[in-house]
């Protein structure tokens, strides 16, 4: 019951955001001269757009896949997705203490995580894992289908259309964060994260976002501790 309800929930705005972003990713993979299998493996098994895009960009650098420096490319892409670690830490207690929480592992990504952090605290403990699996699996399948479609439609997805498709993702996350900001701890984290964002302009691309998040998030946490977690 909860699983099916979560599947339906994932098919609204979250599906639109996922589909737009992964459609653009599929087109970028095709444009980089990489096969559909590569694109699907990246979309479904990496399942973290910044890291995926860093890797595709590395492949498209002069020299292409043949002269790819594997070590730096992987390090940059993994660093861009390093937010998976704090996300999994924050999510884990809501999935229950047993071994079944590991079923949620492949679906830990920004969209399911952000929605889960809003929805899970209000659900009965026994229903939380089912909700996350339903939402996560649906989003994951949408991502795979959109990658496939984007790869097939690559010549049509370029210029302004590609830019608008890529814009859906930050727009959707901005809406999620707006909803989150009712809680004061979240409001602090969002404010501090925005204040730390200029770091992105000065640090190497792979590290910049994580550094901004670590700095902003730690400051927000300390700010909350100082005010007695009000």
């Amino acid at each position: 019951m909860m699983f099916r309800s979560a599947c339906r929930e994932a098919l609204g705005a979250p599906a639109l955001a996922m589909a737009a972003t992964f459609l653009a990713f599929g087109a970028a993979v095709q444009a980089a001269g990489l096969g559909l299998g590569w694109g699907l493996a990246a979309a479904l098994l990496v399942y973290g757009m910044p890291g995926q895009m860093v890797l595709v960009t590395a492949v498209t650098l002069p020299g292409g896949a043949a002269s790819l420096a594997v070590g730096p490319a992987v390090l940059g892409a993994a660093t861009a997705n390093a937010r998976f670690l704090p996300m999994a830490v924050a999510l884990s207690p809501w999935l229950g203490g047993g071994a079944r929480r590991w079923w949620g592992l492949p679906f830990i990504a920004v969209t399911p995580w952000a929605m889960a952090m809003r929805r899970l605290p209000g659900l009965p403990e026994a229903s939380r894992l089912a909700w996350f699996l339903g939402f996560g699996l649906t989003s994951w399948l949408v991502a795979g289908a959109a990658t496939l479609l984007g790869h097939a439609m690559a010549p049509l997805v370029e210029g302004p259309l590609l830019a608008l498709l890529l814009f859906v993702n930050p727009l959707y996350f901005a809406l999620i964060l707006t909803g989150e900001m009712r809680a004061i701890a979240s409001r602090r984290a969002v404010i501090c994260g925005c204040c730390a964002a200029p770091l992105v302009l000065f640090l190497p691309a792979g590290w910049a976002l994580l550094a901004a998040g670590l700095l902003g998030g730690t400051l927000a946490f300390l700010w909350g501790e100082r005010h007695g977690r009000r």
Partner: protein
Amino acid sequence: MGGADLALLLLILACLLLRAAGLLLAGHLRPDHPFVRWAASVALATLAAFIAAAVAAPSGALAGIPWGARLAGVVVAIGWMLWRGGMLAPLIAGLGAAAALHFLAT
């Protein structure tokens, strides 16, 4: 196995390890444990920094949308959400505003 395939395989393993380490570290902690609250704060701040950077100073194809259109898209989407609630309608309204201004500017 080519360079792109090897890089993808290593990235898949790295992402798997990051997720597994998070589940392992916090599996037996309560949601209000300081470490979990700190991690949630870092994850939210990272997301906020990503949005701020994507709107204010994006790279790649996203930079093709003028700054004013990106900002208007976010303001319209958030305004719509605060006014009428929901998620899908504000998303479409924000995207429509950004698209309209983008095409007017070009």
